[in-house]
């Protein structure tokens, strides 16, 4: 019985990943970084890492989960959570509705229960196709509930960030999500919970300055832009050009703000190792 459901959920996940239109093989897509055109078949085989320059292009939340989780282990959490419009911001509800239609997401985050090599964990994945993965009340609430759920079930928490920061359309309420998520993570960690934070391109602003920087482990995909202020704002402020590679994952690694850079194809292996090392009693 359980097996039937897990198979059904699996099919649904694949369907949702397909919906993200990453698997249309006849098309060719240009790398947003180096400009080289490759067939989508090749892109997909390389998990949307540029075959030429290895740029890790942003991918959808379901696609990412589908490529990381054990088959049959995906269970979405809090999928009914919808965004709110606390400022009654002109045009915002229509924009949300359009994006839901386009992406199949209600907002920019997906939370799920899943397994990697048989080890259970709670996942939250931000999706940059939805208003740059910005954090409004729904994203903040989903991340918070994922942390609370992980605390209740005594499971590790793994978050993939990709975000332009706080969502402007929800104003001060977005700012408060920084405090809310940071507080939930703090509580989870003080209770002994393992939190692995995975940065992906790009993660800036209020997400960098809250839950994403609080992991027991901070990992990143290669080349990801990670920062508080965006490079354009910094250049305008200091009135000079930033050095090449500034705010990229490799730069952060050398400045002491990451544990490791993980190519997209290695997430499963790396996460599996970390989860295994935190199993109660060890596996010796």
């Amino acid at each position: 019985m359980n097996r039937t459901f897990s198979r059904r959920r699996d099919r649904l996940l694949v369907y949702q990943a397909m919906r993200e239109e990453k698997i249309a093989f006849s098309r060719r897509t240009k790398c947003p970084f180096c400009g080289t055109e490759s067939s989508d078949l090749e892109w997909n085989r390389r998990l949307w890492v540029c075959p030429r320059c290895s740029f890790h292009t942003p991918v959808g939340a379901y696609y990412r989960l589908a490529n990381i989780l054990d088959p049959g282990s995906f269970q979405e959490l809090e999928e009914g959570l919808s965004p709110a419009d606390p400022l009654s911001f002109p045009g915002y509800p229509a924009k949300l509705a359009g994006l839901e239609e386009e992406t199949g997401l209600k907002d920019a985050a997906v939370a799920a229960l899943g397994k990697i090599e048989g080890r259970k964990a709670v996942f939250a994945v931000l999706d940059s196709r939805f208003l740059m993965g910005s954090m409004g009340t729904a994203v903040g609430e989903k991340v918070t509930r994922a942390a609370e759920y992980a605390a209740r079930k005594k499971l590790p928490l793994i978050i993939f960030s990709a975000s332009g920061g706080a969502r402007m359309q929800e104003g001060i309420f977005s700012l408060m999500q920084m405090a809310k998520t940071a507080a939930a993570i703090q509580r989870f960690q003080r209770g002994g919970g393992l939190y692995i934070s995975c940065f992906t391109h790009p993660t800036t602003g209020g997400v960098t300055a809250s839950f994403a920087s609080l992991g027991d482990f901070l990992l990143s995909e290669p080349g990801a832009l990670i920062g508080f202020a965006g490079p354009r704002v910094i250049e305008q402020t200091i009135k000079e050009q930033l050095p090449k590679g500034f705010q990229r994952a490799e730069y952060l690694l050398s400045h002491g703000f990451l544990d490791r850079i993980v190519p997209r194809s290695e997430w499963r292996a790396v996460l599996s190792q970390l989860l295994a090392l935190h199993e109660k009693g060890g596996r010796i």
Partner: protein
Amino acid sequence: MSRYTPEEKVKLARNPGRPGAADFITALFTDFFEQRGDRLSGEDPSILGGIARFHGRPVTVVGHRKGKDLEENLRCNFGMPSPEGYRKAQRLMRQAEKFGRPIITFVDTPGAYPGKEAEERGQGEAIAQCLALMSALEVPVIAVITGEGNSGGALALAVANRVLMLEHAAYSVLSPEGFASILWKDAARAGEACGVMKLTAQDLRRGGIVQGVLREPEEGAHTDWEAVFRTVDAALVKELAALEKLKGPALAKQRYEMFRAMGQNMSLARREET
């Protein structure tokens, strides 16, 4: 409700003649002992902090510091802290918790400094750690937003049991200029942004973001400092008395739950697995 428009309030909030953290400390506290440095790499004058007595009671006080003239402004980087400032604040707050001292913060910043070195030294991480630390402190924390409180740079000192706000102060996700340039690609529409952002004390009180609005003189805080000091002093005495009745874990719980509830109004289609 107010005779000032949101745009006029933002101008008032930025008036350089308003009392700042240093002025509040001089007027409301005695025996102030400034603590400097983050014990990691540096000292950031744009965060002012130390210990002092408030009505005889030792407290830790931390605030954003802007300058009164160009020279001081340059030294304090116009009240835009770097990671060292936030890490100093963390150090002071941890120490306050160790000694059981209440914490009072004064918030007034255009935002955290968006500079090259600030990024290299982990501006985002420094702010995130402030938020996490403050959320769990087992001593009373009261924040007073005195001028402009913009973005994570302001919030980093405002995860408090009570967030109080001067009547014409502004508190927002980003400066109205930044907001307009992100949403409309036009910083010149900042005035319009002030209107939609709901950044006034009255709006924020209604939204449950701040818990108290403190009256200012008719023409703004810069016209009568003494009146402002009296108001802020009375509010701090009252809030502190209420908070000191709570034990440490209850203080952390109250603060957690207050922020936990912010923006939690969505459909609750909670589908738990087995």
